[in-house]
């Protein structure tokens, strides 16, 4: 058995004790935060039928881990939290529309080939919420505010949330009469902030000066209310105007909670590889990692694919990226020694059991020596490991 593999598979890694403890504590904090906001946690299977993901615009097919079951049916590892939540919500048996909205949350590992969700790790942990069966800016803002609270609660101090609206570009494209192919071409250019391509396309299609100005504003515009006003001066399409009103109403909600300082409007924010967003869309950034730690948006038409109409908005926070960022920003996640070690002289085991249990009742991490160390050896061992309380039981307690 000398050729046994002692290393982890490509794209997978161990979470070491100190970091793991920090991560689990963060997960508990997030779970409590979600509970306090009325979100019910669900666990979905680690493996789903490939079918639920392989729909146009859901996810890039090549990023899915695929396998078959014993009957040859195609399966995939869980790619995200949203689609399984959608599958669940669409299939609830005793569904009562009057009980909506539905608030769901999850903290799970996701599996992707070369995805950026975990900073190129193929397995990473996401915490997220889905607010289902709720329309409007108040719902959008609830989810964005919760995303901000989650990141702050996880210890991120320098947080920047960018908010965009996919309907804004849809409306502008219609206003300018762009055909489908040009629309996609310019969308790609906006997504990569490639103003050169936008200008070339405008030249080629003889787009008016006003239209050119609008298209060039999309990748460039960043701010808050001022941006909305800049667009309102030029936008005539009703859908685009509604999009701007939606963003303004969201900003109002966030302002009332004191979160405006974390937020900026980014008119050029696009869905990228995920194509199901239908309204607001947002990303969260911090120092130390080159990828967004938060990603979310409104997806009103997705549950319908599974047979039930439900307007939804949600976000996910990559815990894996948050931990990377915190480590790079200098947060210490060193493995801590246990609080106490208890040894005992021959014949005093029962007394030692009582001592160590009492320490545990006080909330201290306490271990009982199982190797039979004498008092000196226990002392040396305890000091070496930096254990604060070293107790050697050698006589009856009073």
């Amino acid at each position, binding site marked *: 058995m000398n050729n046994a593999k002692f290393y982890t598979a490509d794209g997978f890694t161990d979470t070491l004790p100190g970091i793991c403890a920090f991560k689990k504590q963060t997960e508990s904090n997030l779970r409590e935060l979600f509970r306090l906001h009325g979100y019910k946690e669900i666990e979905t299977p680690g493996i789903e039928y490939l079918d639920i993901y392989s729909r146009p615009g859901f996810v890039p097919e090549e990023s899915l881990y695929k396998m078959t079951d014993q009957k040859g049916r195609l399966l995939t590892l869980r790619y995200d939290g949203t689609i399984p939540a959608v599958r669940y919500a669409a299939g609830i048996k005793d569904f009562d529309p009057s009980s909506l909205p539905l608030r769901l949350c999850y903290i799970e590992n996701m599996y992707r080939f070369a995805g950026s969700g975990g900073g*190129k790790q193929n397995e990473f942990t996401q915490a997220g919420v889905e607010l289902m069966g709720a329309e409007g800016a108040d719902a959008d803002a609830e989810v964005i505010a919760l995303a901000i609270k989650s990141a702050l609660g996880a210890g991120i101090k320098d947080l*920047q949330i960018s908010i965009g609206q996919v309907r804004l570009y849809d409306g502008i494209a219609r206003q300018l009469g762009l055909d489908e192919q040009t629309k996609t071409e310019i969308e790609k250019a906006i997504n990569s*902030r490639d103003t050169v391509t936008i200008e070339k396309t405008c030249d080629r299609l003889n787009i008016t000066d006003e239209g050119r100005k609008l298209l060039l504003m999309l990748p460039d515009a960043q701010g808050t209310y001022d941006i909305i006003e800049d667009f309102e001066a030029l936008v005539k399409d009703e859908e685009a105007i509604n999009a701007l009103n939606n963003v303004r109403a969201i900003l109002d909600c966030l302002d009332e909670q004191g979160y405006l300082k974390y937020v*900026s409007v980014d008119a050029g924010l696009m869905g*990228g590889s995920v194509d199901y967003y239908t309204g607001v869309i947002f990303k969260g*950034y*911090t120092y130390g990692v*080159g*990828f967004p730690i938060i990603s979310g948006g409104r997806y009103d038409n997705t549950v319908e694919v599974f047979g039930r109409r439900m307007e939804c908005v949600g976000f996910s926070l990559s815990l894996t990226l948050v931990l990377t960022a915190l480590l790079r920003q200098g947060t210490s996640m060193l493995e801590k020694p246990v609080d106490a070690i208890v040894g005992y002289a021959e014949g005093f085991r029962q007394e030692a059991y009582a001592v160590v249990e009492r320490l545990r009742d006080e909330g201290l991490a306490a271990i009982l020596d199982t190797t039979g160390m004498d008092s000196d050896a226990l002392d040396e061992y305890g000091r070496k490991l930096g254990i604060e309380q070293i107790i050697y039981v050698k006589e009856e307690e009073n």
Partner: protein
Amino acid sequence: MLTIALSKGRLAEKAIALLENAGYDCTAAKDESRKLILEDENAGLRFIMAKPADVPTYVEYGAADIGFVGKDTLLEEGRDLYEVADLGFGKCRMCVAGPVDLKDGKLDLIPNKRIATKYPNITRAYFEGVKKESVEIIKLNGSIELAPLIGLADCIVDIVESGRTLKENGLDVIETVADISARVVVNRVSMKMKSSEIKPMIEKIKEQIALL
């Protein structure tokens, strides 16, 4: 502090000259030593010297905030970046080239052609995506022109500047895949988190490009 990834060689020299003209102190970057990281704390700039093909990787991961790199590398690597400016220099074309008798549509008559290239991703995207045909791609690392001469491949996909190497070997450009020039790329997170440093830099770079 902004970290700037440069492609070692001529492109780096031109990028540095452009930044200097834009008012940035690049003394550190002109250090002739073999150091790979050149830092100037006063100027708030740190330069890293990387292989051209690695520049998009450094920038995508955020190890560098900004990169100067050829469009050929960007197309081949397919990284998720902001591509904010076309520097206009380092101009050339990505071409399908082959024996002269394959010109005027004769290339299309060869079924299942074998194509030698340093750029397998660009080649695949072009033939499958644009020309809608299946091809066999042979990855080579240099002197690609040799492949059709020796019978390893029917044609090649490569960068063409003057076309002299092709001509001297009895080959010619058959089709143009893409126009290439040097680009400025920016990490998606840096653009947000360091926008007060990056945005003015991009503006100044664009002003310089307009002057070229």
